[in-house]
């Protein structure tokens, strides 16, 4: 740390942290994560092998074994294409489409915190990890503000968004020079920023997100569709709301690598909005939104590679193009559907009575 002002501030903020304590913390974190990351990196090695074969069979230059970063970018993109619409489907139908934006800005603050800590106490922690932690804390704050102040959800989101961005810019300005360059890649995303460690973090987030949704999908659906009825049926609505915002925070941080802070929220919303236009059932809408998202991600990465443009921007533009097509298809579907309206059946009271008898009331 060359800046005396920064040194003084660090000494004030972290009086108890000395070099040996930082090393112990670093060692502890490494010990806990070593086994998990070992497995994740093994998965990454298998992915490289698969992509090498894909390159051999298709001849696609972007999958060339010399460009491991592109192979990682494709993996990260495919994961984003699953987890973003998976979570986004619940968010959009709860009218929380902008929560992704709020959490992306706090994730930016998390990145700044990570870079700041690395610069000040040489912690050596990935900024993506600090982004996950800060975004998840922020996600809980959004819920906390809503629950305790009866404020509208968008008010709590606006407060957290502003606070996150303010914290990020303040930390950057304290250590101007070293951090500003590093922050750009998080703001706008880049295919080349996907390091093996970042891909490993994303795979871990992917497993947690998909696993949690698989286990709690019934409750999340009920809370999304009818919060009061869900509460009456015994579901802890506040608890599942917290689960949902924390999963959102994870998606945001995961997608931030190639989408960038500014565009990451689009992947939560745009494919879901498109799927809503053409899907009849909730299950179908999840599947369709994942397909649309994967299409946007793969096309976007391809165009970004061969066109030499920013991946995040292209992915979002492709996704919006797909959304426009979905709107047109949806309109056609609704026009055709209106012609066929089934007759409503009569009320079968005999069946009700039979059931009541079975209940033994």
């Amino acid at each position: 740390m060359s800046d005396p002002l920064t040194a003084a501030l660090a000494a004030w903020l972290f009086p108890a942290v000395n070099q040996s304590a930082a090393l112990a913390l670093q060692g502890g974190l490494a010990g806990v994560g070593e086994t998990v990351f070992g497995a994740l990196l093994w998965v990454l090695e298998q992915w490289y092998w698969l992509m090498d074969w894909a390159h051999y069979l298709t001849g696609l230059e972007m999958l060339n074994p010399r460009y491991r970063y592109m192979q990682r970018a494709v993996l990260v993109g495919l994961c984003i294409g699953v987890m973003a619409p998976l979570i986004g489907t619940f968010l959009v139908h709860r009218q929380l489409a902008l929560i992704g934006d709020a959490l992306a800005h706090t994730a930016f603050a998390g990145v700044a915190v990570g870079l700041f800590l690395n610069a000040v106490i040489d912690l050596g922690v990935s900024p993506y990890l600090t982004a996950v932690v800060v975004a998840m804390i922020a996600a809980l704050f959004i819920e906390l503000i809503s629950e305790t102040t009866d404020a509208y959800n968008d008010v709590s989101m606006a407060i957290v968004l502003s606070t996150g961005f303010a914290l990020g810019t303040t930390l950057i300005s304290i250590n101007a020079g070293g951090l500003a360059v590093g922050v750009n890649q998080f703001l706008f995303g880049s295919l080349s920023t996907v390091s093996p460690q970042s891909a490993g973090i994303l795979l871990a987030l992917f497993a947690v997100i998909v696993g949690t949704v698989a286990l709690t999908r019934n409750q999340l659906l009920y809370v999304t569709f009818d919060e009061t009825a869900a509460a009456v049926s015994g579901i802890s609505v506040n608890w599942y709301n917290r689960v949902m915002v924390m999963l959102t925070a994870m998606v945001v941080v995961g997608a931030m690598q190639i989408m960038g802070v500014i565009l990451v929220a689009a992947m939560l919303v745009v494919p879901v909005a498109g799927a809503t236009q053409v899907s009849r059932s909730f299950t179908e809408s999840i599947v369709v939104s994942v397909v649309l998202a994967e299409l946007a991600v793969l096309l976007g990465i391809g165009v970004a590679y061969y066109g030499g443009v920013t991946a995040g921007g292209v992915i979002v533009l492709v996704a919006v193009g797909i959304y426009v097509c979905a709107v047109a298809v949806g309109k056609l579907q609704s026009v055709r559907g209106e012609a066929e309206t089934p007759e409503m059946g009569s009320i079968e009271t005999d069946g009700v009575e039979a059931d009541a008898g079975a209940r033994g009331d």
Partner: protein
Amino acid sequence: MSANETDPAARASAASDAGAGDPVIDLSGVTFGYTATPVVEDVSLTVDSGEYVAVVGPNGSGKSTLMRLMLGLIGPDAGAARLFGEDAGRFDDGERVGYVAQQATAAEEMPITVREVVKMGRFPYVAVGNLPGGDAGVVGGLFDDPVGTARRTANAVSGRLTAGDWRIVDDALATVGMSAFADRRIGQLSGGQRQRVFIARALAGEADLLVLDEPTVGVDAESVDAFYDLLDALNAAGITVLLIEHDLSAVVEHADRVVCLNREVYFDGPADEFVESDALARAFGAGARFLAGGGE
């Protein structure tokens, strides 16, 4: 609805037996306010199994707040609220209560089919954390019915509905006459059709108590009549019905008992006595009256 082979039905029956003798709803001196001024004040009310009770009152009289107190969604500032004999705030047999609101908040735009909505009634039986096994628990259940318990446990963990659950869902749809609409998006239905679907959801949960919060708001007159016929049939079948309603004529025609509320209880008795009493004028104001053939 036909009797089903699933264990949850037996659990519901066992729970019903366990709570036998207790009122379905029991409010004792309940007072609640969102601010210092109470919305509901010193309300005592008991609803027994099989009753058809309607709560009426002018706008802002505390009807919906009272309903939330009864269901344990909010806790009283004073007094006690009990549901099936348990503290309403800690009541954990949610499947015993079916709830129908004016309309689900996300229903209009959400791509979800009628069948998927009714399926939600089965969620308390298949959700994670609701492992079957009854009093004996999962381990005890394994000795009684090893194959069945193992299968149900797997379904509870995975959150998947069994064939029996799906049969109950389809039976519930048939009961309310909505089988032909099973694969339709809920947003494509009329208000009356949608309310039938929500009733079906409660039936799929094998609810003992049906709570309806002004269910016919925005529903056309013909559908309203059919809707109340359905409630009559369900009540005749033994389901306790608690109806929060603004349509006084419907209440008098269909409910057995009327509770007239305006912060405190002005009347609690048979529907025909409510018509004769002065409670309407006291609770709604001197200008309120029944119109010939209905309406307030």
